[in-house]
């Protein structure tokens, strides 16, 4: 047995989970799909006294279409979203999920678990940022909504309070006049990204860029939006010059950490190259969708 001993609580409702959490702060950890937390437990990098397992709460699982977009329960498995008709309604989400780990990981791994874990090299936080997703959070008696922009605070740190549980995430639908793409560089398929970029681009009838979003991952303590580069794209023809300008602004603004996998300079370079590449693909998708 590798983890340190813990008490195990398996609530059947969000209310039961919140009550268990209230009683055990700060000694409890929430267990979602376990694809990040279980390795941390096995390595004893975290030693909670109480583990609250959300896997028995059926109300946290499911995909609903609402006026605002796709509402996805926090405990919905990544593989389910990948195979659902979400592919048509929110294709960038399905595309991003295919880059997460491997099939066996995605069978257990959840949408909410990945977002709350907030690994800076993970794909879903960048998708949530690019789409301006909303995080519906439950606390004893009071629910609140946290916009994606305010959710990711720092390395593995979110705006979620110790007594809160993520209930669902609302991903706005990508408008039909928009194109989207995700590009990342990894050593092997399924590895965490050395650098990655999510792009969403909208063109007007004249073919000019009216909206551009760039969310980068693997290059800062959290996923980040490249706002300056986004603004510089508005009103421009989606040509190579515009994309290289955006890439240069991204390179300018980043100061990524260096580690065993890649130096800071290399990450920066890769992020810029991927920015130009992902924009080109997003524009192509946009044109294909308008045909």
């Amino acid at each position, binding site marked *: *047995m*590798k*983890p*340190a*001993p*813990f*008490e*195990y609580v*398996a609530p059947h409702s969000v209310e039961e989970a919140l009550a268990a959490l209230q009683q055990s702060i700060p000694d409890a950890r929430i267990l979602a799909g*376990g*694809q990040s937390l*279980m*390795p941390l*437990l*096995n*390595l004893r990098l975290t030693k909670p006294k109480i*583990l609250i*397992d959300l*896997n028995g709460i059926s109300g946290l699982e499911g995909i609903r279409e609402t006026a605002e977009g796709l509402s996805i329960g926090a405990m919905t498995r990544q*593989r389910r979203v990948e195979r659902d008709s979400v592919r048509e309604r929110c294709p960038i989400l399905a595309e991003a999920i295919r880059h997460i*780990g*491997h*099939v*066996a*990981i995605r*069978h*257990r791994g959840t949408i909410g678990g990945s977002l709350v874990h907030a690994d800076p090299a993970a794909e879903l936080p960048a998708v949530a940022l690019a789409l301006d997703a909303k995080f519906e959070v439950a606390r004893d008696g009071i629910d609140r909504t946290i916009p994606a922009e305010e959710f990711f605070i720092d390395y593995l740190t979110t705006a979620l309070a110790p007594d809160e549980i993520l209930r669902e995430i609302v991903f706005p639908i990508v408008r039909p006049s928009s194109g989207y793409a995700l590009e990342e560089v990894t050593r*092997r*398929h*399924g590895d965490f990204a050395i650098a990655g970029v999510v792009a969403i681009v909208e063109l007007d009838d004249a073919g000019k860029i009216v909206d551009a979003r760039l969310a980068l991952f693997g290059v800062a303590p959290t996923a980040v939006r490249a706002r300056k580069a986004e603004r510089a794209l508005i009103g421009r023809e989606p040509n190579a010059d515009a994309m290289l300008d955006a890439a240069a602004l991204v390179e300018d603004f980043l100061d990524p950490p260096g580690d065993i996998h890649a130096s800071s300079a290399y990450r920066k370079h890769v992020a810029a190259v991927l920015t130009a590449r992902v924009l080109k693909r997003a524009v192509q998708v946009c044109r294909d969708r308008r045909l």
Partner: protein
Amino acid sequence: MSSKRTIEITVNEKRYEGLVEPRLSLADFLRDQLGLTGTHLGCEQGVCGSCTILFNGETVRSCLLLAVQANGATILTVEGLAAKAKNGDPLHPIQQGFLEKLGFQCGFCTPGFLMTLYEFLNENPSPSEDEIRERLSGNLCRCTGYQNIVAAVLWAAERLGQSRIDNGNYFAP
């Protein structure tokens, strides 16, 4: 110390009961309490894929599940694979493929590969080499260089396709 719990699970069509500490992984339970040592533990952090099993019909890393979470679950491990062979064959076509094409050397990673492929060939009976390599990216082998594993999968896919028995029977739950 955390209190032990009773669990009931079905592994390879046989029912088992166990008394487990919450921190016991499903992989350790299968190996140490049930004696099913075919499921191998490499990294115990979800990277190597050696401990892959079918959990309620889906591949999972058994090192990343707790035994308590498997209460009521139906599990298939490598020990249950040969029983799914047809025509009186001693091995499932996927296993036979590894034998024919020398898809293993030390054999440590093989159970994880077999279980991953069992799910894969059920979903995709005639995969391309690229599709095979992508699906196997979650399983690490330090001996073969993967060439012979890919050849084994192609062999198995062809054998399954040739079989006069409906393919689905090889993967019946």
